[in-house]
């Protein structure tokens, strides 16, 4: 069962105009902010991107993976490992991580979908795989055990080393914009329709020549690879790899909450949702530190947990999802007139 509305009907020109406005706004305002707000903006973009990459398997294809921390970790750990090799520019970590993530994702998907793991079994199954990875990392000397690994500064841009963090704002902005455009075209393509169809009614999709196993696998590989890219850039920014965060459920939850809050299976939704999740977290931390005691910051986190709960009850379709649903309702109640030409 699904609560998401696909939006293959959005026209490209409208998308590009909206995107251009957003890029200009962020691009121009960004440098003017103080470093703290810059960081918040960066994280907002990053988690918007992460939510959107999860959205491909979790929103469009409707298979809830709780193991995406595995791919985020592949990204960040690759950076730390490449950093250990002298003379090699860190940027090489990106293609390496992407290939590694794609291979791992392919294997996981091949196994899981061959055995038709679905619903809660797929969710917990992927979670277990991520947990195994975390335990391995926590116990491996090469991977830094529980302290994690440092990523020392390198030589210039090719090693993702800059004078300030500002370039990362633009990196994340470009990544998010590219993923947005990709998601738009994907949702209109045969692949996009196949994913939504199999999410809604797997049997009916098969009867319409959709190779369900292959489509799911493809969605998972794309999603995992995109997530790994974010892991690479994240490690480049914070210069530190921590198994307790990078490979934890916490990261996945932010991605998933972002997608759910914004609207699973929509183009803009996860970006909006991911941004909001980051804002909420920052607001809670700020409140906690204003009052000063650790106990209040725990209260803040508790509110964060309840926030999940409330959102899931109040906005099952997510913010953007609700908007699209209202629009569809209005169309249905007015009685549709045949619309000519492209939408």
């Amino acid at each position, binding site marked *: 069962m699904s609560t998401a509305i696909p939006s293959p009907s959005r026209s490209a020109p409208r998308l590009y105009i909206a995107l251009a406005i957003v890029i200009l706004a962020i691009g121009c305002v960004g440098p003017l902010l103080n470093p703290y707000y810059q960081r918040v903006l960066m994280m907002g973009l990053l988690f918007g991107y992460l939510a959107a990459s999860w959205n491909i398997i*979790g929103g469009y294809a409707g298979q809830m993976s709780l193991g995406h921390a595995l791919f985020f970790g592949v990204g960040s750990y690759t950076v730390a490992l490449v950093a250990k090799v002298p003379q090699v520019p860190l940027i090489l970590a990106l293609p390496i991580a992407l290939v590694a993530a794609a291979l791992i994702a392919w294997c996981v998907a091949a196994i899981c979908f061959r055995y038709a793991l679905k619903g*809660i079994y797929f969710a917990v199954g992927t979670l277990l795989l991520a947990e195994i990875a975390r335990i391995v990392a*926590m116990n491996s000397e090469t991977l830094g055990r529980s302290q994690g690994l440092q990523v020392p500064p390198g030589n210039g841009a090719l090693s993702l080393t800059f004078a300030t963090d500002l370039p990362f704002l633009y990196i994340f902005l470009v990544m998010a914009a590219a993923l947005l455009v990709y998601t738009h075209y994907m949702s209109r393509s045969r692949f996009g329709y196949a994913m939504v169809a199999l999410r809604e009614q797997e049997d009916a999709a098969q009867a319409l020549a959709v190779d369900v196993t292959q489509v799911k696998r493809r969605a998972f590989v794309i999603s995992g690879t995109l997530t790994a890219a974010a892991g690479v850039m994240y490690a480049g920014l914070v210069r530190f790899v921590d198994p307790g965060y990078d490979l934890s459920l916490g990261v996945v939850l932010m991605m998933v909450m972002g997608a759910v809050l914004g609207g699973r299976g929509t183009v803009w939704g996860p970006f909006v949702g991911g941004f909001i999740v980051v804002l909420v977290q920052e607001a809670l931390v700020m409140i906690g530190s204003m009052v000063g005691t650790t106990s209040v910051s725990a209260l803040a986190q508790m509110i964060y947990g309840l926030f999940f*709960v409330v959102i899931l009850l109040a906005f099952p379709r997510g913010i953007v999802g609700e908007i699209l649903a209202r629009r569809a309702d209005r169309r249905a109640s007015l009685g549709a007139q045949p619309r000519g030409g492209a939408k």
Partner: protein
Amino acid sequence: MTAEVEMIFSLLLVGLASGVFTGLLLALISTGFNMSLGVSRVVNFQHGGMILWAMYASFFFWNATHLNPYVVLLIAVPASFAVGYALYRLLIVRSLKTPEDSQILFSIGLLIAFQYSAQFFFSTDAHSVSSDSLHGSLVLGPVVLQYGQIVAGAIALVVLLALHVMLARSDLGRFLHACAQNPVGARVSGLNVEHLSATAMGLAAVCAAISGVALSTLAPVIPERAFEYAILAVVVSVFGGMGSMTGSIVGGLVVGIIVSTCQAFGYGAVAQAIVYALVFVIFLVRPTGLMGGRA
């Protein structure tokens, strides 16, 4: 026997003995989890959060009074029942109307809420309870068992037996059995579904509370572990069969022995990973677990 074989043998014995007692505790955790699974049909991650709450409460109580921590159960049992019951009627029943995916996320949200609310209320860095009344160990040949372990296992066993007896003869037991077989049928069978479901959730919370108090005597209270306990509950249940009470016991013992044996041989950290891998394989091949019914 050569010295090596003797050592392996005694390590195996240690693993077995220790594993049985740990396993009983795991069985209790899994039983409580299975009860909540029976009425909500979705994995209830918040079970781990409730366990953590009980661990915190237990430590807090012991720290303040220096009495045997199990005494806190006098308050904890009724309190946790009330919490579980209310949780079902106020929140969980609403989440049942949302799709399965949302329900999973919902339970994770509850886990986080429990975890941090415990931190907020008890607000201290807690360690494990080292009560004098539970100090000391029992030595049987090569096997050394901590009293704390034995008591925990024994209490778990008593609770499990009590639950079994109680469920075998009651409406609630029949209802839970029906839910596991045929959820829709159970709901139209004329039993007071809301009340029975909430009661089941209350009992699940009680199991979590007892497990938590017992755990606090064996392990330090680390908030991040709430999530691990939640996964542990799932893992043990899958081993034994989701929704099967007997399965919980079998699963608990199997997992307990595997983990303890690995620990005895010095591979404790990896033990978890091994268990997770086994569970993943079970998901692929027979998802309802070794003794469970149809998925």
